[in-house]
């Protein structure tokens, strides 16, 4: 509500822009993570031994300086804190946007918005649901348990068989959602971080965003696709 008062003692850390910065920084953490994760997944093409050894090394990485699974737990804690911060900022700003316009237009034309930019909020929720599904599937083995529990490779390959095509379908749909989230997210993060102060750098940020989106989503999608079509077995 408009209130005819001037406020005193405003703080940068209490602003909507601070929330956006939180979203941008945690978003960059996710990008770093998905790039590494995708690299690991592509080891499927190097065969069962390479893939399982990689998964094993993730657990023994840094030993004896770190305890067993030490690195894995550090990553998990950082990701958990990031998702809490990211979702907190997203939902707070979502609520704020709703209360900034409680009377809607009868006719409203969008002339500049990309589809990706309009899907950020619901797409983000879809990604969160997917992350839960993914953890229940391949981390805790609660959903669709099959394959040798000692071989991550075997579990992945048996999950994406054509007989249960719906598993691959969920993963592929999630990658579409991820591509869209990154398409707008990377560009938006560049703006939020103040890196796009002229027309050229804005164009560059948009190109990088499309590149990252296609690279990450495409790289991830290759694995279920090649198993579905029998290229990897």
């Amino acid at each position, binding site marked *: *509500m*408009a*209130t*005819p*008062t*001037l*406020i005193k003692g*405003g*703080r*940068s*850390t*209490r*602003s*909507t*822009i*601070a*929330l*956006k*910065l939180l979203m941008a920084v945690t978003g960059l953490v996710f990008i770093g993570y998905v790039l590494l994760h995708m690299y690991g997944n592509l080891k499927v093409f190097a065969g069962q031994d390479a893939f399982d050894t990689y998964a094993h090394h993730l657990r023994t990485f840094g030993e004896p300086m770190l305890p067993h699974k030490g690195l894995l737990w550090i990553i998990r804690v950082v990701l958990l804190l990031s998702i809490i911060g990211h979702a907190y900022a997203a939902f707070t*700003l979502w609520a*704020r*946007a709703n*209360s*900034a*316009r*409680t*009377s*809607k*237009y*009868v*006719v*409203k*034309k*969008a*002339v*500049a*918005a*990309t589809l990706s*930019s*309009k899907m*950020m909020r619901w797409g983000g929720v879809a990604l969160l649901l997917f992350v839960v599904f993914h953890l229940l599937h391949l981390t805790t083995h609660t959903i669709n348990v099959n394959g040798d529990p000692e071989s991550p490779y075997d579990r992945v390959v048996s999950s994406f068989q054509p007989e249960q095509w719906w598993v691959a379908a969920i993963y592929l749909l999630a990658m579409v959602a991820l591509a869209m989230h990154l398409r*707008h997210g990377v*560009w*938006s993060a*560049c*703006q*939020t*971080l*103040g*890196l*796009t*102060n*002229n*027309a050229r*750098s*804005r164009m560059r940020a948009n190109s990088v965003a499309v590149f990252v989106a296609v690279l990450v989503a495409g790289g991830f999608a290759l694995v279920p696709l090649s198993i579905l079509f029998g290229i990897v077995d």
Partner: protein
Amino acid sequence: MKLTLNIWRQANQQAQGAMRTYELDGVSEDMSFLEMLDHLNEQLNEKGEDPVAFDHDCREGICGMCSLMINGQAHGPEVTTTCQLHMRSFKDGDTITIEPWRADPFPVLKDLVVDRSAFDRIIQSGGYISVNTGSAPEANNLPVAKEKADRAFDVATCIGCGACVAACPNGSASLFLGAKITHLGELPQGQPERWTRVVDMVAQHDHEGFGGCTNIGECTAACPKEIPLDVISQLNKDLRTAMRHGL
């Protein structure tokens, strides 16, 4: 030409408003959009009906008073202000929907008139420089690099019309705010208060109830002065610097 107009009518700030439909004949394509509304109001006056209230002042695209959402676009289909929009942008038989800016920090006062004093308060909170007034200083005493002068001038063309807020899906005033921050931030006179300015203006923006920016770009597409999105990047950068200074 003959038009069908769907117009938001609301008696006062507290009243419940509604869309009303009017048929209007005898519109010339040389009329400005506001002259078309004047034409409608003459007819309403003759019939003894309450004329449609709308804001305007200069009618030459420089004051920022005129503010209409026309067929879902702030200031209508051209990149200009409503007063500089002409009826040749429409054709005979068109239906035109006219609404006020929709944002809770801009309450509707009557029909199509909104209260934009939230913008004045944002300016009051820091959109100025503090100097001792007196005789004009020697212009060459204060050199300003050409690129900085150009950028400051380009963004200083913001007329505070509020189209950016009206078009933004989040109801954010970041383009307006960014234009002011960039304008003063590029000039030597703006430096002493630069970091407190950005914190205070952003705090006032948030306090008024405007939304947060998600860099969608509807604002810059609607802006009659074509203020570019990079002012929002500049705004964010200045706020981040202020954060580093512990403000």
